[in-house]
């Protein structure tokens, strides 16, 4: 039970925290003040608590696919908020500051909501039971510790490299993050049967299984899937190229005018 708790919490913390460290590194690179992290985490925790405590009802919405629909809506909101943030930030980072902070809080807060809510749900199964809660909490802390340590390593690695090839690396990361989030939204809609299901575009589960450690890390950082569908692949590359196009045209517009 201890080991299970470590793994469950580690997986969720890893997904949320690796993402957070990418966004933090990008924000630091963009010379933004970091105070938005606290409201973003508060939003994440409050959102997660609300989501977890209402999941019973949410699950029954839309003929029992409410969970998928809400998740997809969250992910599309994150994507659009990030696009809008990039438009404002890259056009002029000193203008519309409050809107920029608000959008950043929205992106990060919503991005960690689901992972935190899954930890809450997992722990809720042990609350009020004679044995187990203490073990699970200890395991959870170990898992959270490992996850956070890995994220801190990623954060400093990114910050280090961002100092060299700053623009290029930041744009690559933003593109990957956006493609990933959009691809996850389509996966949720396929699971809900709102998007037509298809077979896999490729199958790399032999070479790089998703359940191996490296596969899990890649899943958490870039959204690696061993057997993705066409919807996912097109959403991934569509979202990614859209962000790159946007960033490129904004930067070029700025250079030309400036």
């Amino acid at each position, binding site marked *: 039970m201890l080991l*299970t708790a470590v*793994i*469950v919490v580690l*997986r969720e913390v890893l997904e949320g925290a690796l993402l957070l460290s990418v966004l933090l590194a990008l924000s630091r690179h963009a010379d933004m003040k970091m105070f938005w992290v606290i409201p973003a985490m508060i939003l994440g925790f409050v959102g997660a608590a609300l989501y977890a405590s209402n*999941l*019973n009802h949410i*699950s*029954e919405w839309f*003929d*029992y*696919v409410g*969970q*998928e629909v809400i998740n997809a809506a969250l992910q*599309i909101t994150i994507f*659009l908020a990030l*696009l*809008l943030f*990039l*438009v*404002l930030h*890259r*056009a*002029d980072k000193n*203008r519309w500051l409050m809107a920029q902070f608000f959008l950043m809080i929205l992106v990060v807060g919503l991005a960690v909501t689901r992972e935190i809510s*899954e930890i809450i*749900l*997992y722990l*809720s*199964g*042990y609350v009020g039971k004679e044995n187990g809660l203490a073990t699970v909490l200890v395991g959870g802390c170990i898992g959270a510790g490992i996850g956070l340590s890995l994220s801190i390593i990623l954060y400093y690695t990114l910050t280090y490299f961002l100092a060299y090839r700053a623009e290029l690396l930041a744009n690559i990361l933003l593109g990957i993050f956006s493609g990933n989030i959009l691809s996850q*939204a389509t*996966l949720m*809609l*396929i*699971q*809900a*049967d*709102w*998007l*037509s*299901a*298809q*077979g896999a575009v490729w199958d790399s*589960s032999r070479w790089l*299984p*998703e*359940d191996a450690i490296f596969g899990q890390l890649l899943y958490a950082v870039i959204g690696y*899937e*061993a*057997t993705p*569908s066409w919807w996912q692949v097109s959403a991934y590359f569509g979202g990614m190229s*859209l962000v790159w*196009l*946007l960033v490129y*045209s*904004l930067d070029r*517009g*700025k250079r030309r*005018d*400036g």
Partner: protein
Amino acid sequence: MCKIPDEKLGAPIYAGVFAVLTNLIFFSFLFVPMASIAATPEFALEIREHLFYPAEIIVPANTKVKLIVTNQDNAPEEFESYGLNREKVIMEHSKTVIFIGPLAPGEYPFFGEFNPKTAQGKVIAK
């Protein structure tokens, strides 16, 4: 001619807002339900004492299938499968629906993420 500072920013901001809006319209199409008209085969799956019943579900290959999952336990469980690309929380004492496939013939293991040691099963597509 001398430029007004605001004009410098005008073009990229409008281009960006335009890009966001066109995307909003594009992605709203994603929300149009595209459920097939043909009846989807349904299979029941039950979670009891952190075990799946049945532990093996035989489904038709290359067909979309609807799993109706009931959790009888006092704790939530998360249905998870790498092969099926599925992940869904099933609250205690509740029922939910998970669509899977169409699957190529083969075996697709799934597990309960909150109790992975006991809650194990597989979908067999034939």
